[in-house]
């Protein structure tokens, strides 16, 4: 594992922020290309850990990976610096774009282009939905949770989205507790009658 200077950390993540589009999973392959193969700052296994952490903690995946790599290389200062570096290009570019857009307001051609873009955005969001839906485990639990969340958010728009997410976490926790208990009971039963170890801790949802 190489020693990395703070400047190198900053410059690498600045470039990643400036030259990647879209974010999310598209960014992961780019990150591993840059950090594992070219720079050899981290190993493939580190990268996988990083993605697992990035997925299961709040935040944007590309940013979380920057924070994580920065931390691993140079501690808290490193993580602050890499996070700042990866966000900085967005800040600069969007600020410029924003003022260009403001200047274009009311321009017929630009308004026409925007109408086209707006129809396209719907396509992008639909595709993001399909991509994320594909990664869910295929079981009744996921399907029911998905539909309930959809229904609440669509037909009761005043309900806070964060509450709906917390509700999902609570249900998931209860199911985990329940499974844990039945697994323990099964283990106790198995210890009592010896043979039936394999059959008992069956999952209810899957």
């Amino acid at each position: 594992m190489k020693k990395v200077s703070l400047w190198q950390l900053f410059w690498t993540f600045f470039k990643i922020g400036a030259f990647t589009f879209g974010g999310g999973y598209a960014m992961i392959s780019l990150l591993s290309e840059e950090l594992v193969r070219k720079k050899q700052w981290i190993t493939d296994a580190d990268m996988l850990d990083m993605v697992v952490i990035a997925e299961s903690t709040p935040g944007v995946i590309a940013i979380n990976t920057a924070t994580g790599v920065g931390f691993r290389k140079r501690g808290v200062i490193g993580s602050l610096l890499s996070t700042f570096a990866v966000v900085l290009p967005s800040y600069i570019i969007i600020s410029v774009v924003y003022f260009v857009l403001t200047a274009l307001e009311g321009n017929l051609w630009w308004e026409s282009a925007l109408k086209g873009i707006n129809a396209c955005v719907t396509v992008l969001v639909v595709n993001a939905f399909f991509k994320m839906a594909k990664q869910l485990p295929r079981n009744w639990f996921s399907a029911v949770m998905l539909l309930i969340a959809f229904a609440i958010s669509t037909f009761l728009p005043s309900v806070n989205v964060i509450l709906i997410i917390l509700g999902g976490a609570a249900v998931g926790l209860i199911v985990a507790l329940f499974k844990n208990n039945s697994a323990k009971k099964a283990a106790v039963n198995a210890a009592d009658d010896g043979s039936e170890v394999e059959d008992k801790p069956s999952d209810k949802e899957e």
Partner: protein
Amino acid sequence: MPFLLLFWEYFKIGLFTIGGGYAMLPMVKQVVLQHGWLDENQLISFIGISESTPGPFAINLATFVGMEVGRSQAEGAMGILLGFVGAAISTFAVVLPSLIIIIIVMRLFDKFNNNCYVQGALVGIRPVVVGLILSAVFTIGLAVFLPNLKFDNLSEESFSNFNWVSLLMFVGMFVLSRIKIEGKKMHPILLIVLSAVAGIIIFGVCGVTEGTV
């Protein structure tokens, strides 16, 4: 205290975005509409532009919203300055929760990753987030096609002014986005550029006005 509110709302959004950038969308949508920071159409345009400029989509969108909130606080040069301040606040706020959490988690990675309650909560959160995105898709899409529709206030009025040109464009773009050429799907940026050109031709050159049915 609009900046304090901006910080607090984006801090919460950062804290509850689980599963990457698009998971942020339902929360952003609710917050900006609730506080009147953007209207639905501005939000949709900002999404399109955030997707087609460099940088993570969610950060771009946060910068945009902060810029708009800041600039609306004052006129002229002061507004521009406040725009930069607003953008810095929303971007910082959205990153802060994950920055803190990642630093903690990196120290206790194995404990965190193998904890059955953390994993249990995530099993519950993931389908909910996808359901929320579906809802955002649904309402954003319908806002493009049916500008007068409000789900909490359905009436005959809701279905007036049906925008069939946009619906046709949506179907066309959707088909294009699913086509694979040599195993590769079209890049989203190309798709956005194409739809902008289509928009200019249909609405600008041909002068199609949004159809009422």
